[in-house]
């Protein structure tokens, strides 16, 4: 047990030193990088390591007769989470989400320190000491709180109420509900049932399983599958259409959506928000192919009421591309990102 706790303490101390060093810039901030594609798991894994580390440190300090008071354990733990979210995770997390995470962490700390009566007594003892003010130091603290707390609350209230010049928060609906059908080049397409005519197997029949088997692999590198190279001059059928879609993409779309379809094209940063990142699992991977067909065809100007605040400069591509070209480019986007269009069967 002691060996495990010592290891935990070591991890905790090393982790804290590393993180603080990276935050204040003593050591390069990319010493331990968040690896693209594994970030979500990595963040949770790091937090697990830190919790293990804190447990170890607490255990070791208790063993050495220098137990860290429960009150300060709780406060430090919460402060750590807030600082971790603020400085470790990049790009910066918007305040609304940090506020949610911070509140949940605070509740979790409360649940921990009050899970049993003994811990709860230990935790609230310093608070009670200040309130009782039986010593000179505590009396001073109590007066300090009496003055500082109203000032702080007043400050927060003033800050909340004072008129600001920054743009207001917008609850943007990224993927508004599509219409039941859409009319492109005079033909009506029912979004629930329409299919991409180029997603076909060698027999020329619609076959999503076949196309799914030939997309690039997800994860780092996004490598092409063996014998599934659309740029092979002999490629036929599905792969040939993917290549044609790719040509259309690089002639029309990549300026904004980027070479790697990650929304970071040449002109991307002229817009706010920047164009959609197709490699993110929250965009095309969540949607039916017909949804993308509709959005490409109608563009930002064709967003429904629900798409408030219509923050999209996407052109209505039906004015520039044929229906076939739109289907092909949509198929290329799925092929390149390694995602599968959503189906409902």
């Amino acid at each position, binding site marked *: 047990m002691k060996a495990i706790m010592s290891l935990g303490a070591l991890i905790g101390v090393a982790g804290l030193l590393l993180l603080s060093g990276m935050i204040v810039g003593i050591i390069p901030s990319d010493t331990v990088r*968040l690896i693209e594609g594994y*970030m*979500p*798991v990595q963040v949770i894994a790091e*937090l*697990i390591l830190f919790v293990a580390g804190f*447990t170890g440190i607490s255990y070791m300090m208790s063993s050495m007769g220098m137990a860290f008071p429960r009150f300060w354990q709780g406060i430090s733990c919460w402060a750590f989470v807030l600082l971790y979210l603020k400085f470790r995770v990049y*790009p*910066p*997390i*918007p*305040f*609304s*989400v940090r506020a949610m*995470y911070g509140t*949940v*962490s605070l509740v*979790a700390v409360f*649940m921990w320190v*009050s*899970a*049993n*009566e003994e811990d*709860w007594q230990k935790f609230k003892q310093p608070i009670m000491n200040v309130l009782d003010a039986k010593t000179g130091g505590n009396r001073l603290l109590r007066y300090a709180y009496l003055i500082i707390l109203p000032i702080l609350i007043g400050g927060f209230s003033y800050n909340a109420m004072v008129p600001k010049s920054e*743009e*207001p*928060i*917008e*609850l*943007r*609906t*990224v993927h*508004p*509900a*599509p*219409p039941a059908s859409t009319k492109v080049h005079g033909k009506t397409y029912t*979004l629930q049932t329409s299919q991409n005519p180029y997603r076909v197997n060698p027999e020329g029949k619609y076959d999503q399983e076949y196309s799914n088997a030939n997309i690039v692999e*997800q*994860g780092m590198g996004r490598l092409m599958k063996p014998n599934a190279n659309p740029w092979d001059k002999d490629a036929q059928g599905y792969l040939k259409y993917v290549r044609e879609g790719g040509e259309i993409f690089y002639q029309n779309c990549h300026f904004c959506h980027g070479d790697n379809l990650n*929304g*970071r094209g040449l002109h991307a940063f002229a817009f*706010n*928000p*920047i164009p*959609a*990142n197709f490699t*993110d*699992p*929250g*965009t095309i*991977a*969540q949607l*039916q192919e017909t949804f993308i067909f509709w959005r490409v065809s109608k563009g930002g100007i064709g967003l429904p009421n*629900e798409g408030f605040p219509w923050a999209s400069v996407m052109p209505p591509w039906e004015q520039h591309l044929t229906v076939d070209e739109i289907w092909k480019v949509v198929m290329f986007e799925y092929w390149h990102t390694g995602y*599968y*269009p*959503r*189906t*409902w*069967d």
Partner: protein
Amino acid sequence: MGRVAGKKLFSIMALVAMVGLLLLPIAVSLPSLAIGADAPDAVKKEGEQKYEKGRDVYYKTEGLAIGAPAPKTVDGPKDYPRYNFESRVLLWFANQQHLYYGSFVLAVPIFCMVIEFMGVVTKDKAMAKRYDQLAYDFIKISLTAYSLTAILGGILIFTFLTLYPAFFGYLSSIFRPVMHIYALMFVAESGTLYIYYYGWDKMRDGFLKWIHLSMSVILNVIGTLLMFLANSWIGFMMSPAGVDEQGRFLGNIWHVIHTALWNPLNVHRILGNMAFGGGVVAAYAAYKFLASKTDEDRAHYDWMGYIAMALGVAFLIPLPFAGYWLMREVYAYRQQMGITLMGGLLAWLFIIQATMIGILFLSTNYYLWQALGRMRGAEKYQRYIKYLVFILCCGYLVFITPHTIVMTPAELKAMGGQQHPVLGNYGVMSAKNGGINVIITTTILSFVWYMRGNKVSTVSWSKFGNIFMGVFFACAYVNIIWLAIYGYYIPANVRVGLSVPQVATTLSCLFFMFPLNSAMMKGAKQMGAIEWGKISVRSQYALIMLATAFTWMMGLMGYIRSSVRLFWHVNEIMRDNSPWAYTHTVGFAANMISFNVLFFWVSILFVFWLGSLGMKKAPVPAKAEVPGGAPQPAAGH
């Protein structure tokens, strides 16, 4: 002897007669229900001359359009008479209050049935008496709430008739026979409830007790059918069937009732009502606990709160799965509706809903950890609670991460796009399924710890059993998390299917680990008694929190379900042309829900107070104790 047999025969005959009378209105009205498909040929021939044919918008069957088309309303005093106030808000208030009380009075008799049954089958006479008393206390609260439900139902109908006459006229023209059956069943429900309540003492012992118990079954069957019928109206408004595209009734009332969303709504509402009812009774017990002056009272209300919480949580655990099924059916019915709910206009309300679900589970776990404090010997588990807190917290954070993040344009720019590379992954369904299953599995683990809190297993295979349970839970966590990650690498339709093994993993923890734990704890050595009443006050606030979260969530989900129709009274059939055919802001909706919750709790406190007026203290027999606990108080009746 002969007299006893006669009584038995008479009571059975009375019960059968009661059931027969209850079913009579349905049997009588059946032939007139469907004059479409099942009508006699003569009626059909006559109908063909008068009526056009129409095609069912959902079932795609053809029938005679015997109903009037849905009215095309215009904004004005004829279709939308009003006060100088938003009619929709008045209706929202009346509807929500009726629903709260309706849910409560439907759920509590189910609890009574379960608790009374436990009292009948238990061999310990003292415990049997406790259970019987508890069931009686429950139904007593329910009785006052029942009157209020009926009054609120009346207010609701008057609100509909006076503020939305065109819409209500259309709805009642479609559901005419259903509404009459509903009214008759309401009478039957009232009659059965009063006999059940006032006959409690008369039918206390022996065979008559079983008859009394059977009446609770009948009561609940009627209550459930009532709810199903009411659900058919909202099901029709969301996913109409049995009418053509002009909204003309095609003669088959079953089609109108059995819409695409009726079944999942029924299941979701039953479970939701039960969880809500458990929460309200637990809050009542917590309130009484906090107000108690004696150890006896504290012991009784501590026990009552625990039972109510356990029953509520038993139905809370499957509730997310029922909700998942409902959403799946919504997507299958109309993709736009699903996206509006979960990815579009109402997505942020779903984040609030996820937050509330998390609060429910967090409160439950917290209560259980506090409850360990009233057991001697449970200290060995308390030191590990911090790890459960961490696991719960991680699951919760993933579960509430929004897909559409609220941010200022400056933050949007700093983030470099709408999608965050870390949070974006938590904001999608695959991660959320993992999050909620981790939360539920941890709750099950907390329950297992609670069940064995003051006990040490004495079975010969206890070491093996402990290791097996530990490995089982560890594997469950690994499986749930692994499937959540794997979900990113497969097509969406397969990913949706992954929820099945995830849920199966969670449920297998519930269904295998509980019995295994019980088997291990059979004849276990008790480290100390459960000291009922010796629980922290924080636990009681957790129960109140649980109930408040249930109430708030019910209000929220009702609002979401109703809002998804957007500007339709009846989806794609009858348009809402009132000035209020827009979706409220999130802030307004949240305030309105909070007001409804506050009003409900103030009014139910009044109901509790009324209930307490009739309670008289009875002397507690020395034997009548919760095993190993402090003496329990009993109220006379």
